């Protein structure tokens, strides 16, 4: 599959990390390789989160924090959250990321998507509202190494969607952003995004079908 041909793993080429007392050298796991595709930084976040998941790697966590904390803060403030509360929520979101790293499944979603859902839920808490969650699916035994192509796809989706959002006409882009910032009521949200969401839906459906067969 051409997907794999594009991926060249460079075990040593990890971004410089500050010293937070991270123990030893990082051994290579399949998910930790960087890809040599321009701008595919998203996959690095997946690798970093897996280091947090598997070894409570503090240096990896610090990198994730530097990337996501300011974004989550802006995300919350754009939705009208005051700065002090936004900072408090960001700390909680990043603490959740640390604590629940074991629940992150890189074949299902990118780190950005996972961070978004944590931030969304924290915002709902802050507003003293409730949002019932669907039943969890038992995706498989914990510790199973997920399919590498799926991990890659999930990580790439955020990047592709981001590019597609950037190409939208201003008015449409702003409407989508405002919907997610929490500025629109449900009656103001329109589903027509003009974005290629079908590919994501198809990927997840295939994974679900496979899961159902395994459980079957």
């Amino acid at each position, binding site marked *: 599959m051409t997907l794999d041909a594009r991926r060249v793993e460079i075990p040593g080429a990890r971004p410089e990390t500050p010293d937070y007392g991270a123990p030893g050298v990082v051994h290579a796991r399949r998910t930790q390789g960087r890809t040599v595709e321009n701008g595919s930084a998203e996959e690095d976040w997946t690798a970093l989160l897996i280091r947090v998941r598997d070894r*409570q790697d503090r240096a990896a966590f610090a990198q994730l924090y530097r990337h996501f904390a300011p974004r989550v803060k802006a995300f919350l403030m754009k939705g009208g959250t005051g700065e002090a509360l936004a900072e408090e929520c960001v700390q909680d979101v990043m603490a959740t990321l640390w604590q629940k790293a074991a629940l992150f499944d890189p074949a299902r979603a990118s780190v950005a998507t*996972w961070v978004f859902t944590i931030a969304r839920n924290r915002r709902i808490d802050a507003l003293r509202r409730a949002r019932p969650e669907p039943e969890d699916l038992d995706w498989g035994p914990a510790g199973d190494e997920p399919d590498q192509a799926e991990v890659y796809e999930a990580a790439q989706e955020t990047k592709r969607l981001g590019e597609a959002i950037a190409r939208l006409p201003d008015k449409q882009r702003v409407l989508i952003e405002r919907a997610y910032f929490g500025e629109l009521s449900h009656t103001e949200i329109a589903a027509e995004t003009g974005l290629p969401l079908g590919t994501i839906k198809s990927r997840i459906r295939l994974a679900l079908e496979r899961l159902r067969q395994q459980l079957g």
Partner: protein
Amino acid sequence: MTIRHHIPDRLLMAYAAGQLPEAFSLVIATHVSVCDVCRAQLAAYEALGGAVVERTEGIAMRDGSLEALMARLDALPPVSKTVARPRGSLPAPLMDYIGGDLDSVKWRPIGMGVRQALLPTDRSATVRLLHIPAGAPVPDHGHRGLEMTMVLRGAFRDQLDRFGPGDVEVADTELHHTPVAEQGEDCICLAATDAPLRFTGMVPRLAQKFLRI
């Protein structure tokens, strides 16, 4: 279960964005629990949320924020399991709100053999279970707001279509319809509305204030 009527995209997107009243969120969580089509579409809308966060230009955290959190990490024990939820004949989110399975529902008669049970949510919208005897009409009402009805047991038909287990009917226009529970099995459904129901038929208007609807 063959589901033919799904959650409309705009409501899945609103749910992904966290912008739906609790009552509607419960119907969606219940449906998504049994519907992989909507589960996948919901994942796509959550991915869109991820892309929005990723492209948002960050606002710097206060100095020392990272260090403050790093200092707390050891006191934050890892969570490796999701909270166990009740298992039974209904999807977990619905059982959470009932506090048990169907046999725990505290039904109250509202006339013509129809029974209902309001579920506890915030007041921005209302959600209830309805038990309609086989062959009986579902209480007729005009809609002033959004209404979502998910079939749990049995089926009902309106002038246009049939709704069986798992199906969701969404009405958000001034629609006057008269759904009827199918013969053979009582129909149990989960119905959320953001406007008080205006019963025009079997249940007297006066009853509304007693029914909290």
